[in-house]
């Protein structure tokens, strides 16, 4: 369906909204989403081509940060966990926390953090593989991470039936990053234990 046909098939009200600036439409959708919205989904929601929406998002980021014509905003636009979402500007998080009075979130144990790190870097990875790196049984820790939605079962190994785990978009959101590529680089050791080893000891 072309834009023309599309517009004709919709009612007059939608036509009115499509005559408004793209930035307004993007803001309207961002105000109601309850999880990060991917660029493509956002473009579909505002009936605009992806490049134009990407451009608009960049403009809004600058705008909210005070690099546009208006003042800096108390909120900001972030790309986190594979999508875009409005956040309270970091400077005001304490003020908002004070207002909401939220409870302190349960911290992950050191064992859980290390297991999470192994899974993040080695995914897809089985529990057995994680255990051999951590040199301890990781079953209960994996259960915790699954229950918190930080990791997920990806697929079962076709030969052994062992379940392979990977990280979720929710983990990315919790880390405040947009993709697993944004994890800090870790020693080349991890690519191949045997090869990297020489570097490791002689360094």
């Amino acid at each position, binding site marked *: 369906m072309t834009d023309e046909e599309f517009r004709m098939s919709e009612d007059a009200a939608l036509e009115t909204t499509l005559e408004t600036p793209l930035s307004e439409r993007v803001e309207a959708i961002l*105000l*109601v*989403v*309850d999880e990060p919205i991917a660029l493509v989904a956002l473009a579909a929601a505002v009936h605009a081509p992806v490049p134009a929406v990407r451009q608009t998002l960049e403009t809004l980021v600058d705008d909210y940060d005070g690099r546009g014509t208006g003042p800096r905003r108390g*909120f900001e636009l972030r790309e986190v966990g594979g999508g875009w*979402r*409005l*956040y*309270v500007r*970091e400077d005001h*998080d*304490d003020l*908002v*926390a004070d207002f*909401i009075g939220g409870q302190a*979130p349960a911290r*992950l*144990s*050191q*064992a859980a*953090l*290390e297991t*999470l*790190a*192994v899974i*993040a*870097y080695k995914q897809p990875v089985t529990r057995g593989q994680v255990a051999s*790196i*951590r*040199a*301890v049984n990781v*079953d209960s820790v*994996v*259960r915790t991470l*699954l*229950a918190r939605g930080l990791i997920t079962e990806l697929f*079962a190994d076709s030969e*052994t039936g*062992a*379940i392979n785990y990977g990280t979720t978009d929710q983990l990315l*959101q*919790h*880390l*405040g*990053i947009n993709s697993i590529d*944004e*994890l*800090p*680089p*870790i*020693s080349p*050791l*991890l690519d191949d*234990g*045997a090869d*990297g*080893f020489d570097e*490791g*000891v002689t*360094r």
Partner: protein
Amino acid sequence: MAPSPEDTSTGLAAQDADAPGFRVSLSNFDGPFDLLLNLISKHELDITEVSLSKVTNEFISYLRDLDGPDELDQASEFLVVAATLLDMKVAGLLPQGELVDAESVALLEARDLLFARLLQYRAFKEVSAWFARCLQREDRRHVRAAPLDEKHRKKTPELVWSLSVDDFAALALLAFAPKEIPSVGLDHLHAPLVSIREQAAVVVTLLRSTDSLTFRELVSGVSEPGIVVARFISVLELYRHAALSFEQLEPLGELTLRWSAENWSDEQLATLGADYDR
């Protein structure tokens, strides 16, 4: 906002003598446990010179003064590291000789692999600090998450409901059940269980039907190692019950078995090999 790699390395470098956590005090080393590892992994301290028992003793007394989840974390970390250290130490203490024979090469490789494992473990442990920092920072963030206002709520498609009240109760059971992750059975990796009692019954029947029998004859035609082992254990058990006697003329030679029970009742089979029950 991806942190730069430097972020991670500063975290790692912060291993000065004042670092909190477990410290070891040895004749040749005094400092945090982590630093000990660091030195060993860089070969600046010979693993063979570290007294692991002393480290362990100090660690246990250190744990006594700790409370709460920190303790558990530190204890589990200690176990991981101590196990690796122990492996390294075993490899380091074993004589390696002057000659480069296959065995000592294998030994060196084993030690190298252990170093690699230790370094890998350390890498993950270090990067987990980055995870902790990010999670903590992001925990403090607030995202736009407000309910839709009334007029938009009404635009949501009408709900399709297909659960009966019993379905709903079943769902509640599921929701309240403790969360378990499915585990992969390993049964197929193990040989099927062999009953010592059943095999003992076979042994008894075979022995009573003839004058004497060699162990080789007793297991002839049996291909499963488990059954051979079970028959051998049965023989030992029956010997304990004085139900048979055996004769072996030379070490590793032929084992000849002879039924010698005076009062045997097959009911005795019921308790035979109970020591091997799980």
